[in-house]
C-alpha cells in the first residue's frame, strides 16, 4: 500500500533558515517518492504552523507526516498532538532533525542543505514503513511514596497529603528533619531553622494522609508508573513506639549515657545507647542503638538492662525484629539528600589531625543553642573561646582533584556564620574568610554579603596552601589575589566549608530504583531545564540535594514541584502508556532469555510453555536494550524496526 506523505519544513526563525536553503529543500522533498505535498513555514511549532500541517492533512488526505525541524526531544510531543488533531495517527509522524544535526552543526549553507535533503529523504523512507500505534491504559493507585524525611521529603509529603493523596514517608534515621534540623539559623533572613522546620515536622507526623516510617529503608521496588510495589524494611529500634512517651527515662538510665559519640552533633557531643537524636525529634520516640547497647552487643547489661528497668511504660522491647512492610503506590518522590565531603581527603588542611580544624556543619552545631556547647563558641581542643577564626571556602568544591562542581551554599553559610559569630563574640575577635569567589546569587544574598563585609571581616580571595599545626597553633599562608600579597595568618579555629557530595550509598540506591546518575554521582533529572524534577523512570521524581547541591529555598521549591508532578499522575484514574516500546515476534523468538537478563526495568519475562519472551507494556521504558541484545529479529521496537532503520540508512548512503 502506498502512503500519502506530507513534508513540513520549519525555518525555526533563522535558526534553520540561515544555514539551510529551506525553499530548495521544500522543492526537493516534493519530488520524493510517496510525498504528496511539501511546505515550509517560519515557526512550525506555532499555532499558525500547526494549522499549515492540519490544513494540508485535510486537503491532501495525508496519512503520514514528516516534519523537518528541531530535535524530536524538543517538539515531538507538540507535533504528535498537531497531527492527531489533523486526523493522522500520532505515531505516523517522523521528525528529521535539521537544526541540531544540521544548521547548527555546519557553516557551509550548500553542504548543510545537501545534508538536510538526506535527512528528509531518510525520514520519508521511514515514514513509508511506519505503523499506526495506539496507547493502552493502566489504572493508577492514588498513593505516593516519599523517600527521605528532610525538608524536601517533608514538603513534598505535605503538598501531596494536602492534595488529598495518601503518602508513605520513609526516613532511614530515627527522626525526620534531615540536614536542616542540624542548622541553627538560615541565610539570608536568619530565621531560626528549628522554628520554621519543627512545625512542618509535626504537621507531617500528625497529618491524616501521611504515614511515617522512620528508621526504615527501602528494600525493593517493583512495578511501574501508577502501580509500584514497595517493600519498606523497618529496622528494630527496640522501643515500642506505641508505648514510648518520649519521657527520656531510658536515656537517663542507660549505662552508656554520655559515652557514645552523637552523630547529630557530628561527634562534638555525647549520648547514650538509648537516645533521642535531638529534643525536637519527630516522632518523639527513643531508639536503642544496636551498635553500642551493652545488652544487644554483649547480651548482658547488669542484671536487667537499665533502660528496661527505668521505663514505666514497658516500651523497651529487645525482641523486636526487622520488619518488611509492603505498600502499593502510584508515584515515588526521591529526596534522599546529600553528604559532605570528608575534608580529610584534602590532607593539607589537617582536618584529621587538628582538633581545631572543623567543618561548617560542626560550626553550625557549636553555634546552635541546642548544640553540645549550648551555643557557646568553644574550640574543641581546649574548650576555650577562640580569638581568631578563619574560614576556608571551596574545600573540595570547584576542585579538579575532588569535586568539580560548586556547592552553592558554602559562601552564604560561611557569611551567615561570620554574622552570627560577630553577634556572639563581639568586635574583638578576628574573623578571616578565604574564598574563591563569593557567589551570592539568590534573593537578598548580595545584600547580606555587603552587610557581613562591613562587620570587620578580613576577606582574602584565594585558597590557603595548607594549615600548619605547630604545637596547637594554627598558621596558614594565603595569597590574596585581590592585592597580590601573601599573608601569613595565625588563628585559633579553622572552619572548612566542604563540598556537597552524593550520599555514600547513592549508586546502590539508584540501582534499587533503576535511576540514573550524572557523572558527578547525583541523581540525573530527565531534562535539566524542562523536566528538572522528573527522572528517566516514569512516575519517579527527585527533589532536593539528591539531584545536586542547592539551598533550602530551591529545595523546597523543587519539592513542591515534584509533588505537583506526582499529583498529575495520582489524580488520574488511568494512565496512557506510550506505545513506542518493545514487542516480540512470536514466530521468531526462540526463548533464549537474553532480553530478560539485559532489561534494566524487569519488563521482560519468558513464557515457559511457549518458550517465547514477553514484554510487560507498563514496565517497558522503550530503551531498546533488548532489541540490541536479541540476535534474531524477535525483539522489535515498535516503529523503530530494523527494517525501518535500514531503510533510513539506505537512503543516506
Amino acid at each position, binding site marked *: 500500500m502506498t502512503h500519502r506523505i506530507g513534508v513540513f519544513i520549519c525555518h525555526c526563525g533563522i535558526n534553520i533558515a540561515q544555514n539551510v536553503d529551506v525553499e530548495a529543500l521544500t522543492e526537493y522533498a516534493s519530488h520524493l517518492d510517496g510525498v504528496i505535498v511539501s511546505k515550509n513555514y517560519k515557526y512550525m511549532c506555532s499555532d499558525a504552523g500547526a494549522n499549515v500541517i492540519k490544513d494540508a492533512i485535510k486537503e491532501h488526505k495525508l496519512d503520514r507526516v514528516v516534519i523537518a525541524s528541531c530535535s524530536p526531544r524538543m517538539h515531538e510531543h507538540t507535533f504528535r498532538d498537531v497531527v492527531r488533531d489533523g486526523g493522522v495517527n500520532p505515531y505516523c509522524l517522523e521528525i528529521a532533525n535539521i537544526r541540531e544535526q544540521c544548521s547548527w552543526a555546519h557553516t557551509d549553507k550548500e553542504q548543510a542543505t545537501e545534508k538536510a535533503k538526506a535527512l528528509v529523504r531518510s525520514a520519508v523512507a521511514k515514514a513509508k514503513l511506519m505503523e499506526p500505534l495506539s496507547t493502552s491504559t493502566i489504572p493508577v493507585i492514588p498513593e505516593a511514596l516519599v523517600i527521605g524525611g528532610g525538608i524536601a521529603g517533608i514538603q513534598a509529603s505535605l503538598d501531596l497529603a494536602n492534595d488529598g493523596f495518601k503518602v508513605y514517608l520513609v526516613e532511614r534515621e530515627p527522626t525526620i528533619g534531615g540536614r536542616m534540623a542540624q542548622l541553627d539559623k538560615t541565610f539570608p533572613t536568619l530565621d531560626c531553622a528549628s522554628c520554621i522546620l519543627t512545625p512542618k515536622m509535626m504537621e507531617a507526623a500528625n497529618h491524616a494522609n501521611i504515614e511515617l516510617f522512620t528508621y526504615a529503608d527501602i528494600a525493593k521496588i517493583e512495578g511501574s508508573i501508577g502501580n509500584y510495589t514497595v517493600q519498606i524494611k523497618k529496622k528494630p529500634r527496640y522501643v515500642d513506639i506505641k508505648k514510648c512517651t518520649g519521657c527520656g527515662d531510658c536515656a537517663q538510665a542507660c549505662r552508656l549515657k554520655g559515652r557514645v559519640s552523637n552523630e547529630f552533633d557530628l561527634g562534638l557531643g555525647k549520648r547514650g545507647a538509648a537516645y533521642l537524636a535531638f529534643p525536637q525529634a519527630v516522632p518523639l520516640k527513643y531508639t536503642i542503638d544496636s551498635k553500642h547497647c551493652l545488652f544487644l552487643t554483649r547480651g548482658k547489661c547488669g542484671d536487667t538492662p537499665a533502660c528496661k528497668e527505668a521505663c514505666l511504660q514497658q516500651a523497651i522491647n529487645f525482641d523486636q525484629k526487622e520488619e518488611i512492610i509492603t505498600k502499593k503506590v502510584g508515584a515515588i518522590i526521591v529526596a534522599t539528600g546529600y553528604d559532605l565531603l570528608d575534608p580529610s581527603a584534602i590532607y593539607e588542611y589537617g582536618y584529621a589531625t587538628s582538633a581545631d580544624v572543623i567543618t561548617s556543619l560542626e560550626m553550625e552545631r557549636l553555634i546552635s543553642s541546642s548544640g553540645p556547647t549550648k551555643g557557646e563558641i568553644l574550640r574543641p581542643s581546649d574548650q576555650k573561646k577562640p580569638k581568631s577564626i578563619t574560614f576556608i571556602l571551596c574545600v573540595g568544591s570547584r576542585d579538579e582533584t575532588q569535586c568539580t562542581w560548586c556547592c552553592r551554599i558554602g559562601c552564604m553559610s560561611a557569611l551567615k556564620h561570620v554574622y552570627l559569630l560577630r553577634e556572639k563574640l563581639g568586635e574583638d575577635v578576628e574573623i578571616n574568610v578565604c574564598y574563591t569567589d563569593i557567589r551570592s546569587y539568590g534573593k537578598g544574598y548580595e545584600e547580606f554579603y555587603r552587610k557581613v563585609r562591613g562587620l570587620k571581616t578580613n576577606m582574602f580571595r584565594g585558597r590557603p596552601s595548607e594549615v600548619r599545626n605547630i604545637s596547637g597553633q594554627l598558621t596558614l599562608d594565603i595569597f590574596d589575589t585581590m592585592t597580590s600579597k601573601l599573608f601569613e595568618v595565625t588563628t585559633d579555629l579553622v572552619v572548612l566549608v566542604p563540598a556537597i557530595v552524593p550520599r555514600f550509598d547513592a549508586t546502590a540506591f539508584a540501582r534499587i530504583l533503576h535511576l540514573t546518575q550524572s557523572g558527578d554521582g547525583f541523581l540525573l533529572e530527565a531534562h535539566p531545564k524542562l523536566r528538572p524534577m522528573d527522572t528517566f523512570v516514569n512516575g519517579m521524581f527527585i527533589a532536593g540535594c539528591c539531584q545536586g547541591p542547592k539551598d533550602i529555598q530551591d529545595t523546597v521549591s523543587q519539592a513542591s514541584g515534584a509533588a505537583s508532578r506526582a499529583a498529575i499522575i495520582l489524580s488520574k484514574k488511568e494512565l496512557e502508556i506510550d506505545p513506542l516500546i518493545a514487542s516480540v515476534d512470536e514466530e*521468531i523468538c*526462540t526463548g533464549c532469555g*537474553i532480553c530478560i537478563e539485559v532489561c534494566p526495568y524487569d519488563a521482560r519475562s519468558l513464557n515457559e510453555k511457549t*518458550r517465547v519472551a514477553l514484554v510487560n507494556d507498563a514496565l517497558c521504558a522503550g530503551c531498546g536494550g533488548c532489541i540490541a541484545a536479541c*540476535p534474531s*529479529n524477535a525483539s522489535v521496537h515498535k516503529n523503530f524496526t530494523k*527494517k525501518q532503520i535500514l531503510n533510513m540508512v539506505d537512503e543516506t548512503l
Partner: protein
Amino acid sequence: MMHHMILNVKDGDVSGSVNEMLKHLLSSAGIEALLVPQAVPSKKTVFPVLISDPKKLHADVFAPVLPVSTAAMVSRMTKVQPSSQPFGVVMHPCQIRALFELAKLNQVKLDNVVIIGVDCLGTFSVNTYASFPEKQNPTLFLLESFVKKTNDSEKYLRTACSVCTDMVPSNADIVIGLYGMDVEHEILIEAHTEKGKKLLEHLQLETGKDVNHRETAVKTVHEHQLKKYQMFIKEKSGLKGIALFAEFFDTCVNCHNCKTACPICYCRECLYESAVFDAEAYKFLRKAQTKGLLKMPQDTLLFHLGRMNHMILSCVKCGLCEQACPNNILLMDMFIPAAERTQKEFSYHPGKDVAEKIPMIVYREDEYKEVGEK
C-alpha cells in the same frame, strides 16, 4: 567427584569393547536410549543415532569424523521441554562445550541427559573420512597411530582438531579415557558427577586400580597442543582491517552453510535471511550509481560480521563451520584468533562450566571503562 574404573579391552578391539559396555548400560542402567556415533550402512561416515534396542547398537565412538553437531541434535530433542526420561549421549569434548553454551541460551535442557564424553584424538573432514586413502578403516587407523605414537593421523586432521587444546572431556558425567592408557588392554571409565557415578554402578568394572600415569599423559598432550595452538594464533592474527576481511571472504557464495553447521547459531530465523534486507530495485541501482558498480550478492560481509558478532564469545572452536564451507574458506583462521581475543577480554570460557554466565548478560561495573562514562 572423581570415581574411576578400568574397562578391559578384549582382543585388542577398542571400539568393540566400548560398544559392549554401552550395550550393558543401555540394557541395565535404566536409560531409555543412547545417542551415539554409528556408521551409516555405506560406512562412508558416522551420524548421531538414537538407539533404544541394545541389539542395534554398533557405536563407533572413536570414529574420527563429525558430520553434524551432536549438541545441536540434543537441542532438537530437549529445547521444547526437558526430557522426562533419561538418555545418554556420547560426545566429543567440543560438542559438550557447545551443549553447555546451548543450555545457557535455553536451547538445551540438561535434565535427564547423561553426557558420556570421549577422549578426542581428533577428527577428519567428512570428505576425507568418506574416501579415506589409507585403505583401512579410519577409526582403526587413528587408534593404531595413537597406540604406536606415529603421528600418521595428524596430516588428515581438520585444522580445528590439530590445534585443539581441550581433548579431554572433563566436564562430562562419564569420561571414556584414552590418554595415558594402554588402550590395547585397558580403557579408563571415569565418573565426574554423581549422575555418572550412579550409572557406572550398573557396570561390573574393575575399580581401585592406579591410573596416575594418565594425569601426566594428559598434561603432556595438552602442553604439546597448546604450543601448536599458540603458534597458530600467532600465525593467523595478522588478519586485520576491512580490506583483508573482505579478501578473506572473496569466494563466499553466501550459502550460509557455516551458519547451519554451527552448533551454537540458534536463531529460528536468521536475521540475514529475513525480509529485513529485502529492497527495491532502485536502491540497488542507486548504490551501483554511487560507486559505479555493486557486487552481488551485496550482504555477504555483513552476514559474516553479524554471525561473528553473535557467536564469537560462545565459539567452542569445533570448526564445523569450516568443514561446511563448499569453497574451502578457512574460517578457523579467522574465528580461532578472534574467539581467543574476545573471550579473553571477558575472561570467559565457553562451554567449560554450565553455570558460567554468558558475558552478554553479566554486568560488571569495572569493565570497558575507556568506552563508557568515567
